[in-house]
Every structure is written in structure tokens, then in C-alpha cells.
């Protein structure tokens, strides 16, 4: 199992403590395309944040690639995220001052990859997502769909063990959404990329081989 969650809870310390996850158990196998689904406010994004080490569970256990995540220091978590995880956010989240190529090679730079290698790798990955002619364009010069494909390229450039996506098509038109989802499908089917995606679009179910349904912070059911 690449992800194993045991009795995962998350309480936000607001005036009236908000129990967003109430104890969730599940496992995800390597190479699976998992969709986390459910109504708004059911805890989908909260769960993704815990899995992606963007937030800390209040209680429970979480193993990713056989590492007990809750025992990692902040620096170790940063390193873990850099080496093993990739993220695609809802709103592209690209730096306005970096070209497509620079955005994509940044994680490789962080890993200490040599210049020639990171330039070649970033260009190759951008080619894979169909942006080989937009390498030196800034985000402001790209469409929403193109920006999201740059974000996907950035997320996969360091060959992560798991690719997390938080409603990646929420801000895209249907054509761009199809392109991004087909890209995910291709990554999963051709390269065996493990993908965990939060979505509220029922039609996205067709891309996922494993669906986790959440309701009111609890695991309602799993579909495989």
C-alpha cells in the first residue's frame, strides 16, 4: 500500500471546535487513480491536505510509502514532499514571474539537479503535456488550461510517488478539463502514476479506478 490511513481525524481549533474528519480508515495501492468524492463540506479537501502533508491530522496514523508521516519534522516533511509528492491545485498556482519552463524546473533545482539535466527534463515534461511551444511564456501569456497543464508538468517533473490534485478542473472550461483529465489518465495508465484527486464532478468517476466517498467527515463507502 502506498497510502495507509488509520482513524484519521482533523479538528480545527475554532471557537466551537470544527470536526472536519471524524476518523477515516482506508488504503490506496500504488498505481491506483483514486478519486475522493462527496458533497461540499464533507471533508474531501481536508483529507487531501492530510494525505499531501499540507496539514497535520489531529489524531490517527498515516503511512505514505511506508513512512510514518506524523513522526516527521517540518524539514523532513518538506524533503518528503519534494521527493515523493506532487500537487496540482485548483487555481493553477504558478508564480507570475516564472516562465512555464522555469516553473517546471524549479522542483528539480531544489533537488540539486544539474542545469543541463533540469532544462532538458522540464522541456521534455512540458512536451508531454503538449506545451513544447510555450516553454518561455509567462503565466499571463497562457490560457487557464495551459496554466493548469504547466502545473501538472511541475507536479510530475520529479517523478513523484503520488500525484495529488485538488479539483484541478474546477476553473477550466470543458475542453481544457478534458485535456487535463486525459493527461491524468495517461499518466496513470501508461506510467503507473498513483493519483489521488478530489473532485465533485460526477463524470470524473470514469477516470478513477478507486473512489472514496465521504459524508460529514466520515468514510461513507469505497468503490473499486
Amino acid at each position, binding site marked *: 500500500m502506498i497510502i495507509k490511513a488509520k482513524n484519521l481525524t482533523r479538528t480545527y481549533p475554532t471557537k466551537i471546535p470544527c470536526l472536519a474528519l471524524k476518523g477515516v480508515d482506508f488504503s490506496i495501492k500504488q498505481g491506483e487513480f483514486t478519486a475522493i468524492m462527496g458533497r461540499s463540506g464533507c471533508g474531501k479537501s481536508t483529507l487531501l*491536505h492530510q494525505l*499531501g502533508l*499540507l*496539514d497535520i491530522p489531529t489524531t490517527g496514523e498515516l503511512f505514505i510509502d511506508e513512512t510514518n508521516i506524523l513522526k516527521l519534522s*517540518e*524539514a523532513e516533511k*518538506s*524533503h*518528503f*514532499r*519534494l*521527493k515523493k*509528492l*506532487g*500537487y496540482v*491545485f485548483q487555481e493553477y*498556482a504558478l*508564480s*507570475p*514571474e*516564472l516562465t512555464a519552463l*522555469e516553473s517546471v524546473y*524549479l*522542483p528539480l*533545482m*531544489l533537488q*540539486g539537479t544539474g542545469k543541463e539535466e533540469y532544462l532538458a527534463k522540464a522541456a521534455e515534461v512540458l512536451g508531454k503535456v503538449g506545451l513544447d511551444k510555450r516553454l518561455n511564456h*509567462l503565466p499571463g501569456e497562457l490560457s487557464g488550461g495551459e496554466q493548469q497543464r504547466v502545473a501538472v508538468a*511541475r*507536479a510530475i517533473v520529479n517523478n513523484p510517488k503520488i500525484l495529488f490534485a485538488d479539483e484541478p478542473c474546477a476553473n477550466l472550461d470543458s475542453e481544457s478539463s478534458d485535456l487535463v483529465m486525459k493527461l491524468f489518465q495517461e499518466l496513470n495508465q501508461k506510467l503507473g502514476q498513483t493519483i489521488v484527486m478530489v473532485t465533485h464532478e460526477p463524470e470524473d468517476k470514469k477516470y478513477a479506478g478507486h473512489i472514496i466517498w465521504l459524508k460529514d467527515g466520515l468514510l461513507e463507502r469505497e468503490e473499486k
Partner: protein
Amino acid sequence: MIKDLKVSYFLALKAITRGNKGTLILTVLILALSFINLSFIPSLLSGVVDSMNKQSVNNLFANIIIEPGEDETYIKRVSNLQSKINSVPGVIGSSAHYDVGAVFSYDEDRNGKDVKTGSWGVRSINLEDEKRITTTYQMVVEGEYLEEGNRDKIIIGKEISGTYGSELEHRSLKGVKVGDELTLTFNNGIQREYEVKGIFNSKNVQVDTMAFITEREMESVLKLNDRASEIIVKIEQTGEEDRYIEKFRSMGIVKEEIKSWTEYMGMAQSMIKSFAIVKLILVAIGLLVAAITIFIVIFVNVVNRRKQIGILKAIGMREEIIVRSYILQSFFYAVCGVGLGFILMNFLIVPYFIAYPLSFPFGLVNLIVNPRDLFVSSLSLIVASLIGGFIPSWRAAKESIINAIWGS
């Protein structure tokens, strides 16, 4: 470490080269002005102190002043003393003065009506000696300087004549011109008439309230010979006065009081001390303003990039890399600001004040840029900028990824 530095540098470089150019120019300009603000006041105060010192050395006291010993009115055997002093290597020369108070009367219409009077000091000078010591002979603005053999001639400062922009015009003789007759009643009761041969303007009130007559004339008034109220001594190296004073004493000049010019700068010294405090306060305020400015610039920058910072952390970038990139940006702003400020200060402001010096009661004042002050200002501004850049970026980088990206 080097890899992390490279990433910080990369982020900073892109933020600077592709960020908002208006913000960049404005920030650099603000820092340049902060630098000028930090440098201008110390330079002005240095200029004031330098002007006061130069005026005192060049026109009033020279470097060393020898006065009569206790219970003596005059120094005796002056020629002998001057020969001894002048034989010391490094001594440029000495000049003996008689200083006497006198009441000046000016009857402009020579009819005994509306006679203007006032009391000022009269100093006798040995023309040859004096020209080696003071620069008053260069400051005659009307008429001529005294000459050997002048017995009934006098030169007066503009504060006595009441002309040439006199600062104390109300206490002057209100409009004395070269060629006018003045009646002087000396402290010993002797009254003599003098023709005004020249009027000088040293731009120093203390000098410009004096009048000069020749040594021979004064000796005839006082009925004295080879004596002096003071001997002033000029040496080659200002600052070496104590060494020369020791030397003079070792040569047997022990009855007389020997002092450095700095001992006569009582009021000026307290002003200089006050200037140092004022300078410190202004520099501290200037630095605080600069630090707050850069803090605001980086803070606004960071607030606008809160989400970006969250994303960078999410992809595995450590906090220190992010903070370092903002510190590098601050460093860039500070260095550009200091550089621009330095250019403006040295190639625009200082030359302007050399061409159009400020007029103070003790003389004209230029800006004196002290390299040490400049270095301290530059370094302080850079450090203040780094702190101003560090605090907001550190706070932003410490924020949780969730808060940074989605805000709460």
C-alpha cells in the same frame, strides 16, 4: 547549502527582473533618499564643525596661543620669544598682538550731530608676521589692507562698518565707508583719529567685530615696546598642538600660558557635542524610517504572494530558501538605493553646496562627506533593509501551507 542559495537567488532574480518595475524604481528611490537623509545631516554638521575650526585657526587663534602669565598684563621680550618659537621645525610662524578695547565714534557729517558710537576690540598686527598666520588680508572687500608705516589708518570688520550684509547692523556704525574718519578712545584714555583704509568680511562674526592697526601705532598709543597681549603660533600639522606646546615649555617658555586653539572653542565645543547627539538621533530616525519603508515594501510584496509562498512550500521548498530570496531582494534594493544615493550625494548635492555654500555666523559651510560616515550610513541602511525584508518574509514563510494558500 549552495544549491539552496542558488534557488533563493533564482527566485529573487526573477522577482526583481520580472516584477513590477514601478515598485522597483520607487523602492530604490526611497532608499536612495533615505541614504541621502542619513548622509546629508552628518555631512552638514561636519561642514559646520570644519568651518568653525578653520575660521578659528585661520583668522582668530592660529594653532597655539601664548598669553601673559598670571598677574602679568603683557608678555615681555616678545621678539626674543618669537625668535625661539619660529626656530622650532614645523612652526610656520608666529604673530604678536596687542588687544585693546576702544570706543569708536563716527561723525558722518562732521558737524558734531548724530555721532554714532560703539565699543569694539582693536588688535595691533605686525603685517609681515600676520600674513603668514591669518588670512584676514585676503578678505578686504573695500579699500586696502594696512601697510608698513601706516600710523593713522585702520581697517575694520563689516560688523563695525555696518555694511556688506552686516549681521549686527543695529550695533554697528551704520554705513562707514573707506576714507571716513573714526575717532577711537582707547581704554587708557588716549584718543586718536584714524582714516578707514579698508573693510574686511571674513564671514565670521567674531573676526568681523574687530579692527586692526599697525603694531607701531599701537605701541605709541600704549607707550609700550616689545610686549604683546598674545602671540599666536601657526604650525604645519593641525592636531599636533600638544607636542609643540611641550616643546615650547622645554625651551624655557614657562612663565606664559600656552594653550591649544581648541581650548578657546568652549562654546563651539559644546555645540559640536550637541551636534554629535543630534546627528545620532537623526541617523537613528533615518535608519528606522528606512527599515520601516523596506518592511512595508516587502510586507506588501509578501501579502500579495502569500499564496505563492504556500505553493512553494507545498512543492517542498524549505522556509529558509523563501526567506533568503526575500532577503536577497532587500539586499538588491538596498545596494541600488545606496548606490543611487551615493551618486546623487557626491555628484549633485555636494558639488551644489561647494558652488553655493550655506552662510552661517561663523563662516561659509560646505558639506564635508566623511568616508567613515558614508560607510556607516551605507552599512546601516543595508542592515536595516535586510531586517526590514527578513521580518515579513519570515512571518509569511512560517505560516501554515493551508492558511497561506487558502487564507484564513
